[in-house]
């Protein structure tokens, strides 16, 4: 199995995957606790539209996806906060709009091509060094921002009203959270694919929450769950000749079951 480490495509997959998994898990804890975790799913559908748009105009889907998904994430937030629409409803509206737009663009370009399919299901084993560098740099940026806003994020997640009375600008904190999530979703699409990206955000966080730890420890545990899922998933994918994205999600789910079982056994 270790001979796999000699291959450049495995090295790239492990490096990019490790960073993105930690990033997703950290943001996932806040999103799951705010009951906003399906935003990852909604934004991934918008990503489908932006990728179709990028491929249609023969430009890098990443450059189109970052602004389109960021604006959509703010749209979901605006619908929830100002439009008095429930969070899941706002996500549903933006999500279906993304899928519909993507299908129309794909249809205009003569149907679904191979490139679009690779984004739908991920292709971590084919990513380039430039994409690895971008993933590492953006992951570092997002994690730095989470550290910068850490206490504001915790306070606003626990009790938004009291956070406002502590002088915290909860509107700005929520915007930061959804913008970071949109960046993360775009970064993750090459690894697990649009169809599975929300699992990256939700499952490691949900697993860590089973353990009954403090906030800080829960974030660390979620990062560990995400990291182990990606590394194991990539090796399983190599050894068993299975798709990497799906293998990662399956490992992630097994870890969730283990954490759930542990909670039941320890009664925590």
């Amino acid at each position, binding site marked *: 199995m270790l001979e796999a480490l000699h291959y450049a495509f495995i090295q790239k997959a492990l490096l990019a995957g490790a960073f993105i998994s930690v990033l997703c898990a950290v943001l996932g804890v806040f999103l799951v*606790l705010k009951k906003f975790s399906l935003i990852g799913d909604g934004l991934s559908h918008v990503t489908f539209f932006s990728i179709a748009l990028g491929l249609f105009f023969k430009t890098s889907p990443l450059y189109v996806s970052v602004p389109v998904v960021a604006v959509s994430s703010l749209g979901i937030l605006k619908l929830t906060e100002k439009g008095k629409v429930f969070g899941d409803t706002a996500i549903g509206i933006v999500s279906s709009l993304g899928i519909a737009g993507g299908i129309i663009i794909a249809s205009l370009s003569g149907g679904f091509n191979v490139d679009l399919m690779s984004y739908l299901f991920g292709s971590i084993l084919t990513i380039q060094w430039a994409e690895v560098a971008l993933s590492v740099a953006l992951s570092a940026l997002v994690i730095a921002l989470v550290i*910068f806003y*850490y*206490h*504001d994020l915790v306070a606003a997640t626990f009790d938004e009203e009291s956070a*406002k*009375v*502590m002088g915290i600008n909860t509107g700005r904190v929520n915007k930061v959270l959804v913008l970071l999530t949109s960046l993360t979703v775009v970064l993750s699409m090459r690894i697990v694919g649009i169809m599975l990206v929300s699992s990256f955000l939700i499952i490691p966080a949900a697993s860590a929450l089973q353990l009954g730890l403090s*906030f800080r420890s829960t974030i660390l545990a979620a990062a560990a769950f995400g990291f182990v899922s990606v590394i194991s998933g990539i090796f399983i994918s190599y050894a068993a000749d299975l798709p990497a994205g799906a293998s990662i999600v399956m490992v992630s789910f097994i870890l969730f079951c283990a954490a759930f079982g542990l909670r039941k056994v320890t009664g925590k």
Partner: protein
Amino acid sequence: MSVVDFKKVTYIASGKAVLDNISFTVSEGNFVGIVGQNGSGKTTLIKTLLGLFKQASGEVKLFGVDPVRFKDWRKVGYIPQKVITGDNRFPLTVSEAVGLGLLSGMKNPKTLNSAGRAKVLATLKALDITEIAEKLVGRLSGGQQQRVMLARALVNDPELLVLDEPTAALDVSAGEAFMKLIRDLNEKRKVTVLLVTHDIANIGKYADKMLYIDNKMVFYGTFGDFCISPDAALYFGKYAQHIICHRHDHEKAEGVTRGA
């Protein structure tokens, strides 16, 4: 100096005046019970005071400043009506929750240094909840959770404590114990207290003033004033006014005896 100042404040929601031309002033060291029936505007009033709602007309001042522009939130401790998330897996320990209170008004990145951690411990000790410091807040009893929220509100040594029905979910003895804590804070540390309740019968045991609202202001003053207030007699009827005053005198005497 006045801590809270409302001048002809009107707040409108869905076309209805939830607060209609309310004026009152709270001075340093006062303990004011804000009383009224469900839907009378009590919670709206304190949310307007804290800048969470913006009034349609009138003027609100918190320590002499418009709450929307107020910056010195370390002076204010707040316990909302519903504080604890229903999810008992919410991963926040008691010491983490109390530590959040210490971050009021700080600039990012906010950090809790060793002096801050010592202050958190001292507050936990003062409220007798040191032994639950590492437990998750969501897994505590209602009485313990309210003590934790009080610790979060007090960790900054606030000058004003605003509480919205803090004993609503507690049993009688836990509620009494909590209210005694608040009374002690007011008497010994001179913390100004604004406490929302619908329990007009018991608030006189702790508060020195009562603000009774029914969307409009019905009465504001001491309990002594209440007993001879023609406005109160008109609103409650003379018999009900007499019963409330009698109950207040009795409860106050009982409280003094117990405290002695």
